[in-house]
């Protein structure tokens, strides 16, 4: 059963100054089954991140449909859903993780992870337990949990980012090169966590540099330059 179906998605960017239209992705058609992991590959600038950002509605799609099978709303077109609907879905159903950490000032690492759960209405005690569990899983040293992430290394920030996105176990998770600068050991942790999420029926769309590494997790690969799927495992 499909959780996400993208039909004829196109996105261009128009820059008023100097009056330039930049084409990003065109005629994207892809689907994602429930509990499936689809990897997206393509050259830099091909529009991989654009697809994810259109689904997340950080970008406004120009054309096409993004039909998501929501628990709360049933089938909903994310390209035209209201802002309130998108905010609801981001809070309860859809997760997005990128290479960049966006944390409020004076928010500790643990508070940042907890915030994803508190927003969903989880109790503070439960959020605290789950956040600790997730931070331990990603091997973020315990002495960093109550510190502000501004001084963290790139790898620590990425792990914090992943913990924040995964702790709420979203129904649909989008991953935009979240392992780009992680060491091999941590990548294996990420891969194992993705497997766990898959087992719990989280559906995922991911952009990874080294898709071979995702073997065993990735069910299908979508090549953006060809506009089609290739290879299934």
């Amino acid at each position: 059963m499909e959780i996400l179906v993208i039909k004829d998605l196109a996105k261009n960017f128009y820059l008023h100054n100097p009056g330039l239209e930049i084409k990003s992705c065109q005629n994207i058609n892809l689907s994602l089954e429930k509990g499936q992991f689809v990897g997206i590959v393509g050259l830099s600038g091909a529009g991989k991140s654009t697809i994810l950002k259109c689904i997340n509605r950080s970008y406004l799609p120009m054309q096409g449909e993004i039909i998501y099978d929501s628990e709360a709303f049933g089938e909903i077109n994310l390209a035209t859903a209201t802002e309130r609907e998108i905010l609801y879905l981001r809070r309860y159903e859809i997760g997005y993780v990128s290479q960049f950490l966006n944390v409020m000032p004076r928010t500790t690492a643990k508070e940042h992870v907890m915030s994803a759960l508190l927003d969903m209405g989880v109790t503070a005690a439960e959020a605290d337990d789950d956040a600790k569990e997730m931070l331990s899983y990603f091997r973020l040293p315990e002495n960093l949990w109550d510190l502000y992430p501004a001084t963290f290394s790139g790898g620590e920030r990425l792990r914090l980012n992943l913990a924040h996105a995964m702790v709420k176990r979203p129904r649909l998770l989008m991953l935009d090169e979240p392992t780009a600068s992680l060491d091999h050991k941590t990548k294996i942790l990420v891969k194992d966590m993705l497997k766990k999420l898959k087992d719990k029926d989280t559906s995922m769309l991911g952009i990874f540099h080294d898709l071979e590494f995702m073997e065993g997790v990735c069910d299908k690969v979508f090549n953006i330059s060809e506009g089609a799927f290739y290879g299934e495992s």
Partner: protein
Amino acid sequence: MHLNEKPVLSVKNLVVRYGEGCPHCQENLEKNRCSVCGSVWAANDISLEVYPGEVLGIVGESGSGKSTLMKALYFDFAPTSGEALLRDYKDGSKNIWDASSAEQRMIRNNIMGMVYQNPVLGLRMNYSAASNIAEKIIAAGSRNAGKMTERATELLEAVEILTSRMSEAPKNFSGGMQQRVQISKALANNPAILLLDEVTTGLDLSVQSKVLDLIRKIKAKYGISILLVSHDLAVIRMLADRTIVMLDGKIIESGLTDQILEDPQEAYTQQLVHSLI
């Protein structure tokens, strides 16, 4: 978050015009000034909704009408036309700008809290911090001195002002502390909506982050709705769920905050985002 919730605040077609206006005003506006009659349209057909627990950001350059909107909502002056409905005032059935003076005072004291860019406008600088809060509580009808002190202590602690300094007048405080006292005063009667007008402008970075953190905590703790005016996009990025962009008294663009910042559609918004340091 429930999607069928009523908005806490709903503004429809707000116009604030200085000058008589003329039949050709709308066709002859140069920026927001009519080239025929000289009237200035400080706010021109503004409509927006703020939902429970939401932060709605408003950005725009100086003179775009951001503060005009806030001040009209807080009855600092009467708008030329338009309607504003509050969920907590007659169940959103009556325009607050048609309310009597007594009712408007009640709305200011009980339903809305305002924090001005300039603390001089929001605080009595020669009264103690605690008295500033007490004044707001008294205005809402309470006379119990013990409860007032208790509430002032609680609020000043929440904004990280040492209670040992609650008897001091804000004129002796730093800019950041004054802003925090103003926030605690605005929260005194548990308002449904907080109007924050450039609250971090002019504060140094560490104090700014303290104020931002405070706003985040207030939102989480009290589930309060916030209308946040700022020309600092970093502040908007951190706090606002949705954002409105204003130019020359009009709303030119609105959307999810990350969409406005990552995929701005209008020329002015693109210019604003590209100017972000």
